Every structure is written in structure tokens, then in C-alpha cells.
């Protein structure tokens, strides 16, 4: 079994590593620093850490003002608050003026678990992808999270990076030790010609396991890690449609406005093929253990394998 580390933990450590060299980095949090793991930065660099209290709207405005003065600002809270509570502040003060603010939102999706629907961001990607100028990234594991944070720190402009609460398996290292995260470039985690699974975030790992299951049944699935939802790697999508003839998207998010909603028009416009979509249906979630909730919504390796089989049968 691969080592398990949460993407938020990778974020906390990476901030500390970046901070010594990059003196322009300033970190904001809204009274959640032990959970977002910005507390690691706060302990090392207290002068450049500002706790904004439970006031996310104000935090986004402060982030904008700091960025307008030349700072590289990381602003963190839970995904549901970063995207929903402060949406207009992100829109007005950060996205439209293209300010250098990295919104790193932890606790994305239903894998938050027991806290229930109020803490499950299932619409955050739709909200953030809807904003012009915003780059939206969902790393698949801790290594990729660390790299994405580094790249964001060096890349001017607004970012929304969605991280997860639970520990999840490391998927790089086994695949490619020299992997380098590039904004907007999907990663082919596994080659295959029978169909393509496009997954994002912590759904990439079960997608890979599903592909192994189907390999035993004689089907060759391609698995793409679509870590950047915006700008979307349209070339990778079109190539997958042409070369594999069927596409299944998998995300820990509502279907509307998320990965599936972003991939489908690209397929429809360029090379229509049978598609299937695994996402959270149009309803709010509830409490439960992370794995129970993911299972309830079919977002497991078994669930993905089942959907892939159905899709392959439709391909004809």
C-alpha cells in the first residue's frame, strides 16, 4: 500500500519551504490554521501571517490589498467558505483585477466526512471556474499539491487550489519520479486505447485501481489526471476522444459546473463520442465517514469500474 498523506499537509509544509526564499509570501487564514495547516507557516514566520478571524470576506479583500502592493498572498480556509461565503469578494477584488492571490482551500468535497453538508464543498469548482482570470487546480496527491503550490507562487495572477482533508495515497513516484506539474497540462497516468477515464483530485487514485481491474478483464483504459480544471487541457481531451472512443469523467463535486461539465462541450464540439459522468447528483450531502460518503455516491474504484464497463458496452 502506498504511503498516505493529505494534500493539505503537503500545502502547510510547502509554504514553510517557500517562505525563506520568497520574502514576498504572506499568508492569511480565517481561524482555521490548524486544519488548513497554515499554522506551520504561522509558527515559523509570524510577521508574515495574519489571522483574519472568522471573516472570510474581509480576508479576501485584505489579500487583494496586499497583492496590489506586490505581495504573493496565500489565503486559506475551507473550500465551502472560500468559494461560497466570499464569492463576490473573490470576484470583485481578486479575479477581475487579476491580483496575485492564491486561494488555497482545504476540505474540498464530501471526503470531509462527519461535519456534513455545511462543510462539504460540492459546488466550489463550479463557482471558481465560472470566474474569468481564475486558474483552478485540484491536485491528485500530496506530491502534486506541493508542486502546484510552488508553481502558483511563481505564477502571477489568481489561483484557486482545492485540497482535501483525509490522508490519501501518493500516486506519483510510482508513475514517474521526475514528474513536473505544469498548469493546464493533463497527465496520462496510464496508457490505454479502449476508453478514457478523466479524473481530478483524489478520484485519480481509485480511477487507476479501476483501470487495473478492467485490465484483468481484457480492457485497456487510459487514465488522465485532469489536475487543472481551468484552463482545461482540451488537446488531451480531444486526443482521448479520438484515440479511445469513449470518455468517463470522475469528480468529487456536483456534475453541474465541474469536471464533467467542462469536458463535455470540448468532446461535443471536436469529436463526439459516448460519455459517462461520475459526480455528486443534484442534492446536498450528509454526515458520514469519508469512505462511506464516497461509496454512497459511487465514487470508488469499484464504482468507476462498473461505470467503465457500461460505457464500454455502449461504445459498440
Amino acid at each position, binding site marked *: 500500500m502506498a504511503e498516505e498523506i493529505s494534500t493539505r499537509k503537503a500545502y502547510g509544509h510547502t509554504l514553510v519551504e517557500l517562505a525563506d526564499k520568497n520574502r514576498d509570501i*504572506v499568508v492569511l487564514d480565517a481561524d482555521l490554521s490548524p486544519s488548513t495547516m497554515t499554522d506551520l507557516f504561522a509558527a515559523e514566520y509570524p*510577521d*508574515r501571517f*495574519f489571522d*483574519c*478571524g472568522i*471573516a472570510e*470576506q*474581509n*480576508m*479576501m*479583500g*485584505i*489579500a*487583494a*490589498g*496586499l*497583492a*496590489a*502592493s*506586490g*505581495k504573493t*498572498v496565500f489565503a486559506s480556509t475551507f473550500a465551502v467558505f472560500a468559494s461560497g461565503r466570499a464569492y*463576490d*469578494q473573490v*470576484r*470583485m*477584488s481578486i479575479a*477581475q*483585477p*487579476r491580483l496575485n492571490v492564491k486561494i488555497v482551500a482545504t476540505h474540498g468535497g464530501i471526503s470531509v466526512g462527519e461535519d456534513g453538508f455545511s462543510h462539504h464543498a460540492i459546488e466550489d469548482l463550479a463557482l471558481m471556474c465560472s470566474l474569468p482570470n481564475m486558474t483552478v487546480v485540484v491536485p491528485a496527491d500530496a506530491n502534486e499539491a506541493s508542486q502546484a503550490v510552488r508553481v502558483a507562487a511563481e505564477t502571477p495572477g489568481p489561483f484557486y487550489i482545492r485540497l482535501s482533508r483525509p490522508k490519501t495515497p501518493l500516486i506519483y513516484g510510482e508513475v514517474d519520479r521526475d514528474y513536473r506539474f505544469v498548469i493546464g497540462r493533463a497527465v496520462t497516468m496510464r496508457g490505454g486505447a479502449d476508453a478514457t477515464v478523466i479524473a481530478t483530485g483524489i478520484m485519480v487514485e481509485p480511477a487507476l485501481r479501476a483501470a487495473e481491474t478492467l485490465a484483468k478483464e481484457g480492457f485497456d483504459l487510459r487514465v488522465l489526471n485532469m489536475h487543472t480544471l481551468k484552463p482545461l487541457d482540451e488537446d488531451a481531451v480531444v486526443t482521448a476522444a479520438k484515440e479511445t472512443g469513449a470518455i468517463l469523467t470522475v469528480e468529487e463535486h456536483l456534475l453541474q459546473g465541474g469536471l464533467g461539465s467542462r469536458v463535455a462541450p470540448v468532446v461535443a464540439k471536436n469529436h463526439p463520442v459516448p460519455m459517462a459522468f461520475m459526480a455528486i447528483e443534484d442534492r446536498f450531502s450528509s454526515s458520514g465517514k469519508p469512505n462511506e460518503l464516497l461509496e454512497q455516491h459511487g465514487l470508488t474504484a469499484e464504482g468507476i469500474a462498473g461505470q467503465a464497463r457500461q460505457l464500454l458496452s455502449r461504445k459498440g
Partner: protein
Amino acid sequence: MLSAKKSGNRKGKPAASAPKSAAGVSASGGLSVDELKAKAKLLRRHIIEMTAEAGSGHPGGSLSSADIVTALYFRVLRHDPSKPHWPDRDRFILSKGHAAPLLYAALAESGYFPVDELLTLRRLGSRMQGHTDRGITPGVEMSSGALGQGLSFGIGVALAARLDGKKHRAYVLMGDGECDEGQVWEAAMAAAHYKLDGITAIIDRNNLQIDGWCCDVMNTEPLPDKWRAFGWHVIEVDGHDIEQLIDAFEQAKSVKGQPTMIIAHTVKGKGVSFMENKAEYHGKPPTAEQAKRALKELE
């Protein structure tokens, strides 16, 4: 595609008043109080002409803030219109973004862009957007128009200055109706919590908002007490008295360890008799005939 640069009927020359200022010197520094009063009247004339020409816009709250903005741009602010991105400039943040015509008038008269461009207000492709856009208008520090956000931005500016050991200040102009927004009070708390003496905020207390008198729509009184309770140094002035305003801005600079709020008592629509104290002129431009009358009053 229309680009801002191709728009309008600009003649391409900056205002004659554009100074060759040395960094660190108020760009239009030496104006006497009488000259400042004349400048305020000129800005008011621009507001009338711009909104009349555009056929839309917000004259009421632009007119009420005109003396405040005049005192800032032509006396108080350290800025250099030839270098809008000068790192050590004081930042003026227009939180009440609907007063954009006033800000554009002040920027044009300071020399940030040609005065002729003012009459392109709200036109397709114009740099004079209906509400401010940080990306396209020289001298505009913040995109605004959704109320309640400027003070937070100002905190960020002041924190950055403090981190960098710089002396420049953040000046944030807010509306009194704007104080209905919850974010204003989040920011009020935070600025005092961080002991930010690099912020001077101003509330244009004209007592009117779109739906009527502030005390009827949403009563924010006792407003000065609220800001004091939140930890601010509060100064109340006649917002149409240039000398009082300048004194208040000077006093604010000497306050240490806490932010300063200047509550400027004003009259909405100030300077145009038929607009004064009328909520309807919040977002209604003068007709051509009304503009003529208004300009006569502002001679």
C-alpha cells in the same frame, strides 16, 4: 474589438496642470484654500457634464464627496500622476465605486489622463467605466462597485506598507449607506486589531441612500460611537469645509496604534440646488436642461 485607447474624442494631451513632480511631493501641492475651493467646483462641473453626456451615472454621491476628494488629490496625497505605479505613493481607494465620475475628474485634473476623456464616461470601450476598474484606468487603485469591500483592501495595503517599512498611507472613501454591509464591520474590527495607523478612512455622511434617508432604510446611528467602540480614532468634520478636512487628514497622520475614521458630514448633491438632499439623484443623471442650470450654479 474596441480598445480603450481607440475610444472617445480625446485630443491626446494630458491636462495642462500635470506637474513635473519629484517623487515624494504632493503632485499639486501648493494650492491655497481658495484655489482648492475652485478646484472642487471644477470637479463638480465635470461630474454634471459627464453624467449628463453619459445619460446615466451617479451624480448625488459624487457631488457630496467632491470636497473630500479635492482635499486629498490636490493637497494631502503624496502621488505622482506621471508614475501611477510609484511604489511609495499614498493609495486612494474609492470604496463607494459609484462615485467614479468624481474620481475620474480628480485623476484627469491631476494629470493621469486627458481631461477630454472624461466625456467618454460609460461608453463602450472607454477607460471611464461605470464603476471603477483597476486594470484599465490610470490611477484607479481598486475595482469597485459592489459595496463594502474597500476598507478590507485598504487594510491589505497598509499591512504591506508596514511589512516593508514604508511610510505611505491608505485612504479609503466609503459611503454611509455602505456601512449597512457586514464586511465593513469585519474590516473595522481587523484594522483596529492590527493597530493599523496607516489607514485613514472617510465616511461621506450624506444621510441618504437609494431607498431614502439612511435612518429609515437601515439606521447606523450612533455611527461615531460604533467606530470608536470598534477601536478607531474618530474625527467629525463638515465635509464641505476644505480647511477642516485638511486639518483632519493631518491629525490622522499623527495618530499612532489605531486607524482613523473621518466622518464627513455632507449634503448629497451638494452644489446643485435641485439635487441637494434628494435621494433620487443617487443614480439619476441631469437632463440637458438641468445640466445647464447646474453648471450655471457652479460658475
